[in-house]
């Protein structure tokens, strides 16, 4: 028979302290993450401007996706949203492809034991540097260097060198401004991607490279046969994070302008959301469109993310799993048959 004290000790549960310790995180998380997420869904079913309190069902979605809705300007809203979506994709592709190529090249050079680059550490730091500058400063820097008139450094230099006769519209020009944003994004992020890829390459077993060397593989073969296949998990990670970041691209496209208003030619979906949301009072803002666009971009991200994962899944493991299942089935069938013969 256990004494009262023993019973009490048995009854003490330390779990509640655990709950206490994790409670702050969950409270903050619910208030600042879960609820806003749910609220975005709710907002996407409500009206805009003077109809902001009205439930409109799927109207916002049909407006921005199909151009049909309650507002007289539904078609215009659709046009605007798809222009923003197009800009987002163009800007993302335009910075992701050069960025990954450049990072891959540099990562391979920096990790190759045979290429003895002097000042590796210095270059790594310098190339990572842009990533730690805030986007606001970067935008301010580029706006002040690449202003559209001859008062700005790049245009005045180009004109003095006789390369152009009139100032180039680096900020207002529809194509030049997009190229500039792609360049800035690449410049900002290639250092980061490079570090990521380098860690991936350094994680590859060096004996593989040594073996390849001994077998007489040249560096191109080593790259395509060893480095690239074994780098796949890191590449997928980079692709997914870059894709999520790219679809939400906001800071540089929004800040890269001169004057009071953002540059319409660089309007990404995130800028579209912010613009519709941030119009002063509820009476003049379009919370519904902003909410619907957020959800659409959320769904697109989810789909693209799933596709990437599906395409890059470990095929060997899946094949093995299938084989095992098949074997199991065969065994079961056999047992069943055996059962019947008995």
């Amino acid at each position, binding site marked *: 028979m256990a004494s009262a004290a023993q019973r009490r000790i048995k009854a003490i549960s330390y779990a509640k302290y655990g709950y206490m310790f994790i409670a702050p995180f969950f409270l903050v998380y619910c208030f600042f993450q879960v609820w806003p997420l749910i609220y975005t869904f709710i907002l996407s079913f409500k009206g805009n401007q003077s109809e902001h309190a009205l439930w409109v069902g799927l109207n916002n979605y049909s407006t921005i996706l199909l151009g049909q809705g309650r507002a007289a300007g539904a078609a215009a809203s659709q046009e605007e949203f798809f222009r923003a979506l197009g800009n987002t994709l163009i800007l993302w592709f335009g910075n992701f492809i050069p960025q990954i190529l450049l990072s891959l090249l540099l990562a391979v050079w920096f990790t190759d034991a045979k290429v003895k680059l002097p000042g590796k550490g210095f270059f790594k730091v310098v190339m990572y540097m842009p990533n730690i500058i805030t986007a606001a400063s970067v935008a301010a820097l580029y706006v002040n260097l690449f202003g559209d*008139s001859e008062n700005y450094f790049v245009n005045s230099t180009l004109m003095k060198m006789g390369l152009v006769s009139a100032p180039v519209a680096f900020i207002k020009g529809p194509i030049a401004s997009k190229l500039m944003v792609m360049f800035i994004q690449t410049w900002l992020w290639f250092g980061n991607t490079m570090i990521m890829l380098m860690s991936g390459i350094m994680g590859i077993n060096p004996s593989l490279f040594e073996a390849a060397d001994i077998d007489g593989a040249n560096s191109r073969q080593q790259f395509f046969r060893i480095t690239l296949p074994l780098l796949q998990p890191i590449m997928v990670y980079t692709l997914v994070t870059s894709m999520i970041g790219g679809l939400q691209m906001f800071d540089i496209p929004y800040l890269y302008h001169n004057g009071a208003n953002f540059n319409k030619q660089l309007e990404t979906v995130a800028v579209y959301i912010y613009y519709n949301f941030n119009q002063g009072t509820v009476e*003049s803002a379009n919370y519904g469109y902003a909410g619907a666009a957020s959800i659409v971009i959320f769904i697109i991200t989810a789909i693209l993310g799933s596709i990437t994962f599906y395409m890059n899944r470990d095929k060997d493991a899946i094949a093995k799993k299938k084989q095992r299942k098949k074997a199991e089935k065969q065994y079961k069938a056999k047992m069943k048959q055996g059962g019947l013969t008995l």
Partner: protein
Amino acid sequence: MSKLTRTLALVATLAMASSALVACGGNTESSTAPAASTAESTAESAAESVEESAAESSEAPAPASDLTNDDATLTVVCWTDADLANMFDVYKDQGLLSDGVTLNYQNCGGNGGEAATQYATYLNSGDDVDLFVAEAGWILNYINDDSFSAPLSDLGITEADYGDAYKYTVEIGTDNNGVLKAASWQAAAGGYAYNADLAKEYLGVEDTDAMQAKVADWSKFEATAKELKDASNGEVKIAATIGGLWQAFSTAKNAPWVEGTTIKTDVAKEFTDMVKGYVDNGYVDPSIEQWTADWTNAGLNGKALGYFYSTWCLGEGAQLEQNGGNAGNWRIINGPQTFFWGGSWLCLSPNCNTKLEAQKFTKAFTADKATMKAYALYSGDFANNKAAMDEIVAEGSNSNALLGGQDQFAVLSDVAANIKMSDSISKYDQSLKDTFLTALKDNIKEDSDTIIDKFTTDALAANPDLSK
């Protein structure tokens, strides 16, 4: 030991959880129940200030005759800090400031357009705000929403106080229900200011009358633009920006942007036709944005002959001075059309906790002749008081050093008297104007129908309330 750990854990948990709750609560409360957040901000600022007396109660809305200062700071939210600094100077000089009260302005946004979008967040934040400044383009958004603005009658100010004010300022300050919610300290008459040295050099113009004759209407203005371009080899433009031209062109027409819920594009179309010619011929540089460093430099470096200004650009430290007026060689004339630009109103926040000072301040700058006269002379701004302005013009007591001693009030007083905008403004104006100018500048090489189409598309997308 374990008790101590337990207590500490509990305290830490509660502290973090309550911070989360407070942050959330503050926002929702201030939009639904202004009284609660007043209490909060009163407590906050009282704790900050040295004054001890402010902390007690104060919640019941005081009758107009019995206003008190429950807080030691009168906070005016604005983007026009230069104006407010001048007003504070005059207020102190006139000995109006109550003992123990500090004046404070809080800038919110770099220009009127930014302020329009940032105010809602700021005014909901629960930070101290007693009065706020709103501009014609978007004031209707704020005075028609009781969570942002309170009637001026709470301060004992009524329309009867504004006998001498320019009538349109009172009409715009009245909300949809006929309640007076805002009062203006200025009548924003506009004029064309030009660099007299450049005018003499390239146009051979000696005085303001001759210059006015050269730009008396839009066709003469264009002819002068051509003359200037030819004489200066395209170095000097007649106006710095498309934005300035638009202001002069559009406000003079007094045509509404929105009729019912329909967007009107007639004036925009007319302007597009005109300005496309200007750009094609090199009379104006479309890459320069209003109120930017480029805009400032155009005048400073002698690249622009003149600017379209409102009265609030002409004071000390204001735009004229930054644009190169400090040499005293600039002059102001009416230009091709009499026009006006913006104009700002003082609105009362429902969270005002310095009501006595707010009343004194609002009355002094919007209704009191002596203070307004002093303010006009001090700042160069055109005060919203006919009697005061007439007196200044009659006395000839104003001379603006930036304009070589010229009295800008004499030039602009007729303009101010003729401003009509109350029947044409809508709460969509700021947004439509920005959208139009962006579409125009982005697509300046397209033909004018395409530009108007693009503008309409953008405008409709941003304003589902409206139709074509």
